[in-house]
């Protein structure tokens, strides 16, 4: 959803299937998560809360959800260009139900608090596209490093997060432009704590970067 080519493909897909994002949203949220997500996870009871995290550049809003009991591997989710919103909170909760302590962040906190896009935002609307692309363009390797350090530090201080080596934080990357920057910018000191942030794909010169 991050570039014009992908957008054109989306239009084709919509025409083919006749399903709009709004229709799907109504369907999925109306029926509830479990009916949509068919993979059977061993669901555990979870606790979730809106949180604020101080970073070197300000205060980031985020959602932290974890199993009610015990210590678990930490997972950091960097959303796609539509930002922190109910769908990503649902996905974070589902992951927590599988036994992870999950932080999903508003990566655009420097601009505004979540939600950072309209509900059912339509990338085909030129103004929406311009605004979202502009927000995405404010992120770069420097901001990613500032944020990654703060978010990982937050996870490290949570009683529900297991900091042992084999439970180091993970990163799920959902979309290239708004979230690949941390992959491209990790420094060696951080790599030991961020095994999943230690490689990246450079779209400009089409090389794999391994740190």
């Amino acid at each position, binding site marked *: 959803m991050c570039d014009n080519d992908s957008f054109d493909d989306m239009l084709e897909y919509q025409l083919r299937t006749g399903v709009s994002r709004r229709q799907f949203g109504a369907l999925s949220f109306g029926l509830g998560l479990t009916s949509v997500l068919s993979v059977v996870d061993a669901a555990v009871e979870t606790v979730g809360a809106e949180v604020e995290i101080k970073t070197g550049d300000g205060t980031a809003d985020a959602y932290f959800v974890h199993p009610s009991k015990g210590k678990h591997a930490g997972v950091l989710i960097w959303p796609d260009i*539509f930002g922190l919103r109910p769908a990503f909170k649902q*996905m974070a909760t589902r992951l927590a139900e599988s036994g992870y302590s999950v932080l999903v962040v508003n990566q655009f906190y420097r601009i505004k608090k979540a939600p950072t896009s309209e509900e059912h935002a339509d990338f085909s609307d030129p103004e929406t596209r311009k605004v979202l692309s502009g927000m995405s363009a404010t992120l770069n390797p420097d901001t990613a490093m500032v944020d990654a350090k703060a978010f990982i530090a937050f996870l490290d201080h949570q009683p529900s997060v297991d900091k042992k080596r084999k439970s180091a934080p993970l990163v799920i990357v959902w979309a290239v432009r708004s979230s690949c920057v941390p992959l491209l910018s990790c420094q060696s000191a951080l790599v030991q704590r961020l095994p999943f942030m230690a490689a990246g794909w450079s779209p400009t010169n089409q090389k*794999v970067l391994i740190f």
Partner: protein
Amino acid sequence: MKAQLLIAIAENDDQKQPEAKNVLRESFTNANIPAEIEVYAGTLHGWCPLDAKVYNAEQAEKAWGRMLALFARALA
């Protein structure tokens, strides 16, 4: 680097850069880093988030399952 990776590629992204997956495979193989790299048939860029226009339930579930498998393996 001690990472293990899951790289799930949309079919239309693969069509734009068909060599990318090969470069990825070769690079991670040479670096001795386990990486599962797969093009998901019939998917369009951004098919996993629940509210995406191009959400593909079947393939999103597959990717989610592979992610859980990776986490279980890597964090055992």
